[in-house]
């Protein structure tokens, strides 16, 4: 059962959303007044392919409790294969975060289309719950500057 401190834990969750599908899907959730938890902060990029593993790692080092990376479904990408590249990068990221010891619940790559406001709302709800269950991230580095990756 969740303890009282866990109930009060307000996670810091960063979301990267592509302009054409996921950000539009989030707008669609708004138009339909679909409610979801306010714990996320969104950065809009033109394509999910714009996000690099470095951005996500930096976010964890700055103290993010969770990072969601979202783009178009395969075949829907405005730039044809940008989301495929995002997936490739995500696979690399998974390895890197594993080495860093980051709980897999803390990061996700998801596809949400412009019409899937309901999916967006459900996804955010689920992700926020996952992060709350995972608790505050232990990966925040002291100081403002992210440090170098550990040498393996």
């Amino acid at each position, binding site marked *: 059962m969740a303890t009282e401190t866990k109930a009060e834990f*307000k996670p*810091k969750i*960063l979301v990267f959303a592509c*302009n054409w599908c996921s*950000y*539009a899907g*989030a*707008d*669609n*959730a*708004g*138009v*339909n*007044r*679909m*409610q*979801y*938890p*306010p*714990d*996320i*902060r*969104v*950065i*809009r*990029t*033109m*394509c999910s*392919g*714009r*996000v*690099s593993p*470095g*951005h996500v790692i*930096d*976010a964890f080092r*700055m*103290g*993010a409790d969770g990072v969601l990376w979202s783009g178009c479904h395969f075949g829907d990408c*405005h*730039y*044809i*294969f*940008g989301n495929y*590249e*995002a997936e490739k*990068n995500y696979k690399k990221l998974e390895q890197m975060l594993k080495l860093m010891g980051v709980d897999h619940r803390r990061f996700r790559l998801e596809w949400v289309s412009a*019409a*899937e*406001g*309901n*999916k967006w*709302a459900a996804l955010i709800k689920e992700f926020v719950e996952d992060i709350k269950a995972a608790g505050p991230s232990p990966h925040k580095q002291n100081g*403002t500057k992210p440090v170098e990756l550990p040498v393996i």
Partner: protein
Amino acid sequence: MMDAGRHPLIDVFTLSEVVGLAGRPGNYRATIRTAPRYVDIDLCTGCGQCSEVCPVAVPNEFDMGLGTRKAIYSPFPQAVPNAYTLDFESCLNDVILACERCRQACDIHAIKYDDAPKEVTVPVGSVIVATGTGVYTPYLKGDYGYGIYPNVMTGLEYERLLNASGPTNGRVIRPSDGKVPEKVAFIQCVGARCTLAGGEYCSRFCCLNSAKCALLTKDHEPDVEEVSIHYIDMRAFGKGYDEFYRRTQGEDWIHYVRGKPSKILEDPKTHDLMLYTEDQKTGKPGIHKAGMVVLASAGLPNRQMTEPLGKLLGIETDEYGFFEARQSNTQALEATRDGIYLCGCSRGPEDIPDSVAQASGAAALAAKYLADDRIPPVVEDIPQVDTSGEPRIGVFLCHCGINIAHVLDVDKLGEAAKGLPHVVHVQSDLFACSDQAQRVIQEKVAEHKLNRVIAAACTPRTHEPIFRETLRLIGLNPYLFEMVNIRDQCSWVHTNEPIEAQKRANDQIRMAVARAARLEPLEKKELKVNPSAVVIGGGLAGMRAATDLAVQGFPVTLLEKSDKLGGRARELNVTFPEEYDAETLFNEAYDRLQNSGAIIKTETEIEKVDGFVGDFTVHTTNGPIKAGAIILAVGSDIYNPVGEYKYGLTAGVITNMELESLLAKKDDEIEVNGNPVKTAAFIQCVGSRDVKTNPGCSRYCCITTIKQALAMRKRGINVIVYYRDMRTFSHHAEQAYREAREAGVMFVRYNDDDKPEILGDKTVTGIKAYTESIGEEVECDAEMVVLAVGLSPYKETYAKLKEILKVPTGPDGFFMERHPKLGPVETNTEGIFVCGCAQGPKDLTDSVSQASGAAGKAATLLAHETVLLDPTTCEVDSYLCRDCGTCIEICEFHAPGRTEVAPGIFAAAINEALCKGCGTCAAMCPTGAIKARHFTDDQIDSMMKAFLLGTNA
């Protein structure tokens, strides 16, 4: 829609109809009557407060009556214009009892109860009829219990159920009890291919629509156990459609059942449905149970609308109420009066890709009368604001009526923003997007010497262009603007958590301020456009594209590899459906081409293409040609069936193209080795719908077979057609199919894995095939076997052109369009267009219509003196680049290339004319040498810091 709504040269008249057309082609005067909207379109911001307070709920037409709307409403969320409409019929407000709730709720005073109809007369050069089609309502005939049994619905209604923003929020539930059905059954051809009700023709869009809905059903409702599709023939004829069909066949919970149910009965207690079907294998009747039935309702024009409109415009309609084309093959987009053009479902049912291609085609044809009246570009001279100094940020907050303000404390957001670095001015407005507020922004920019502007309001996807334009007009670089979405992604979705929502809005504003300080002014790059075009391929499609461009006054060069024009059409005898002589058809097209002034170069091949959109140099065997646009119309090869069905080994086995030339000799008897042919057998899908050769449908062969079979019957020859699905989807094709059956042509269905076998060694003696309706193999005597061969890519030519033009081919080997629905004639390379069979197999009519479409798209480019390139592209720091080639490898648009930066040292360089600005290369670059402008690492980093570390350095 938004593009059309926002285009400076497009005036949109909604709630309007044409009530008069006078004058002549090139100089018509159209009278338009606009019904009152009761809402001022210029004032309404689409905030929806009026709708919130409206007490009336009526069935929502957009949701097919499954949901409700208010009396004052916006039909659907993306509606253009973004203004509400008052349905006066259902409004409670009348003279005696005033309701006035909406008027009181409207802070901007946009509602006018005394609005009246308006009539205007506008001068127009040409008219395009794009009135679409209605849908057959099964209710009229009580088919399958529609309108009686609650769980029987039409395909369109089912689409609304599947829509996430539809009446059930994407849930597939039964109208009778709100439960998820265990089994869903789709019935095809309801009101289509039918002489009793609806239309005799094929509706083209329903087969794939049902397949799509079937597949989506399980996505939406994992509890659905089975989906069955009851069909006559699956007509998955479009590009990639057969692959999709195969995919749905591969799902073990989707069952395709051949044959339409005879009737449906309902269990009155459970409202479950019983479909009376026949097992095609045993011939025995059976009952198929389903919880929900979806009727794939046909497209049927609204005659009450089309016939009076046809009279008014002076154009003819056909027996169903569709508009008639001037000639079915090469003038399919022209109505029967000069200067009036047709596209989409106004001329017959179409699927989306064909409709969109035709729309571009109709626009190209309409431009013929407008070429002299092109509106010259407006030259503006706005002194630019100097933005080089320290960032001075202005934050403008929007209440959006109460949409934002009822959840967020906008003033407190402003207070918080005031304390952020570089912020020198903060103010809030009731509606920041209103004209008045936009003028205030312009004044404040000047007053406080702002060089960065932030709007915290709704979504940048709809409103960023408005703010950017406001800033551009006063000389502030529009890329120094940043938008924070505190409505769609904050107040609307965190309504019940105002404290946390306020925190989120605060953070997002802080992030925007951090980013704004790092924004750089960007200039749109201007490229000169050479107003001429090169069309590659001199078949009927290429000829049409060249003609349509040349009549608009653009210099066009038509390149043909062989020594004569006409391509495949030269091999034809007569065309379908009008039995038009192919020779005449070609001659007419050739005359039009010659009169258009296009330069024709035969025996010319391309060797190399340099340059980019607006400025290509096409190097040919006959010297270089400069062009702003290139149209690819190289056609396709015909499948060579050597080794199949004893073709080439046994006399009497010929292809349909060979039969076409036999039929051209009108007086000669058709014979094999001197013996007259008594019975001829056609085999369909030779080299089509076969994963080993050509995975897709070749579209032309079914109807060609019907045409040839009818010609053979006229000569007294017996005809048997062995087919898999009869795909007679084009105009008048279904009627011809029926005619062929009536004329005694026998149709025998064969299975994909059980092909007919040809008997006889030296000459054909017969044909043997498993016949399902009899349940055993049946042998028939035949002296001739005609193979309906498919269309396949020209392998070598395509490979060469792919390399030269940098246009990719798809999995089927044909050239890939930019987007099947949004850009069916464009390619990934800007300035290069594709049409005809080079894009995928199609018949003459569709090829030629698509060619007009490509010409239309090319003309939009060529009509401008310059093309403006979006500056949010990527650039390479050659000092950091290690020439690894990653960016070159991943870019779909071939924007990165190699350049020699110092003797012997190479680095990547990005061609801005090709870059689309996705920024993927910047993410993939291992050394960080690539900068994605407007979405730089520095900007993203600053936003993360502002949020996670709370620092706005």
